[in-house]
């Protein structure tokens, strides 16, 4: 629309079970690589780990906080903050923004998490309750609260404007990116970093998820007939975003544009999704982007491989896209990364940006036989080259919290 500010992406950073930086992550997605393995819980009695009914997950491998993180206090933080700080460092390095930022109050840092510093709190409470220590850890509070990652990153780059974390389960990162997009578009800030981080593969968390009975003992097979639940993962995905004119003025290399954001809630049930909420979020994102359904070339689905989500999402996509469904390429990258929970929207937004830049649709792996009720083009097993002008990313969370983003090519 005329006169409106436009929001562009100038940096991306990721720490994932299939790559601890964006290029490795994207190569792995193109190759159809899976991050699945037996969960190894560090410093944890193997006898207890052996008792877990579900032993698989997608963990970040070979991540060294000392190598990736400069700030000493951040090095002592929870693993979830480590991922966020490392991802932010990659994103800012790519953006080539001068830091500390020049107009600090005109910048924002919105980095959320579904569960925050779960590893810290579990360890600290186990010490407190089982060994009668006088306190968990003097830094426990700073490490476990869901705002630590945002605070650490804000400190690293001198961000003095809005700095906080979003919390909306699997929609956390998408909400963070969407809010920053709105703040820049509405003129509140000119630049910022947004996304989310999650590291919730602790013993207690695995037990808690198992008790909900939604995890698969076999793997994450979105849209597949054999799908039987999701697989937990950890990691972080963040993007540096700025006002288009701000980016052009400093000669920034623009990766993509954030064109639209929609958020709508089911207001119905804590676990069973409605059709209406996801439909409305997708519709709003398209309207905000000023696009028609046929303008979307690639849709990165929420695709968690639960019985309910995949069929509901299929129906919602069909109803929003109508006749344009035929030419839409869809895939769930959770088939490779697993479900990064709060951080999933962050890494999936980055997958959309890379898909646009590279003209490539990553596959839904493990899709040997599709569920007849999931009848869209889910790019089974092997990714493909396709000219992608616009991409959409869906995130539909527990409690019916839906957030959808639309990305377009660099306007420059």
């Amino acid at each position, binding site marked *: 629309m005329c006169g409106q500010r436009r929001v562009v992406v100038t940096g991306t950073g990721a720490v994932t079970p299939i790559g601890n930086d964006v290029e490795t992550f994207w190569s792995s997605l193109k190759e159809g690589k899976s991050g699945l393995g037996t969960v190894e819980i560090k410093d944890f009695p193997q006898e207890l780990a052996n008792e877990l009914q579900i032993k698989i997950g997608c963990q970040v491998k070979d991540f060294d906080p000392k190598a990736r993180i400069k700030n000493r206090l951040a090095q002592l933080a929870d693993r979830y903050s480590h991922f966020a700080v490392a991802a932010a460092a990659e994103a800012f390095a790519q953006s080539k923004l001068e830091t500390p930022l020049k107009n600090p109050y005109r910048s924002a840092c919105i980095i959320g998490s579904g569960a925050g510093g779960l590893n810290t709190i579990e360890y600290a409470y186990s010490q407190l309750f089982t060994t009668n220590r006088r306190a968990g850890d003097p830094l426990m509070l700073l490490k476990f609260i869901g705002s630590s990652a945002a605070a650490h990153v804000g400190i690293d780059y001198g961000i003095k404007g809005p700095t906080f974390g979003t919390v909306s389960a699997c929609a956390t990162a998408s909400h963070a990116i969407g809010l920053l997009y709105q703040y820049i578009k509405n003129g509140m800030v000119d630049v910022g970093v947004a996304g989310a981080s999650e590291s919730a593969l602790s013993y207690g968390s695995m037990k808690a998820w198992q008790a909900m009975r939604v995890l698969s003992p076999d793997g994450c097979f979105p849209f597949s007939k054999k*799908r039987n639940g999701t697989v937990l993962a950890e990691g972080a995905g963040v993007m540096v975003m700025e006002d288009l004119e701000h980016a052009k003025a400093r000669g920034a290399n623009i990766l993509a544009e954030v064109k639209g954001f929609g958020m709508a809630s089911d207001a119905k049930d804590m676990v*069973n999704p409605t059709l209406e909420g996801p439909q409305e979020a997708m519709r709003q994102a398209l309207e905000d982007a000023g696009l028609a359904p046929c303008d979307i070339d690639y849709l990165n689905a929420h695709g968690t491989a639960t*019985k309910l989500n995949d069929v509901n999402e299929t129906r919602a996509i069909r109803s929003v896209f109508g006749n344009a469904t035929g030419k839409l390429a869809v895939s769930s990258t959770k088939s490779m990364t697993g479900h990064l929970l709060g951080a999933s929207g962050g890494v999936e937004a980055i997958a959309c940006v890379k898909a646009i830049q590279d003209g490539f649709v990553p596959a839904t792996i493990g899709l040997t036989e599709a569920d007849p009720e999931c009848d869209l083009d889910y790019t089974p097993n092997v990714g493909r080259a396709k000219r992608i002008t616009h991409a959409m990313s869906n995130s539909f969370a527990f409690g019916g919290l839906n957030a959808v983003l639309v990305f377009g090519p660099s306007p420059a």
Partner: protein
Amino acid sequence: MDDVAIKIIDILKRHMKNPRDDITLETPLLDLEIESLDLAMIVFDVEDTFGIEIPYNANEEEVGDFKTVGSVTDRVRMLVEAKAAKAAGGEAEGAALQGA
């Protein structure tokens, strides 16, 4: 109704919105207005009460798949017996090793 059935009906009543006193083995589970989250909590309680592990996956089975209260008690009874057999087998093995 045996001890297993009585305990299970108790657990079901604890997790129902409107607990009924007329639940029998023939009562269809769907009649009890149990939703998927209730089922997760019921399974958890049953596991605790009987010291067993129930391999239940919400993606593969729904409330409706259990049909009746009787089918739930049958499943639990099977798991309790399997657990006892495993323990007895272990003891017998241990005794045999000691004897040898």
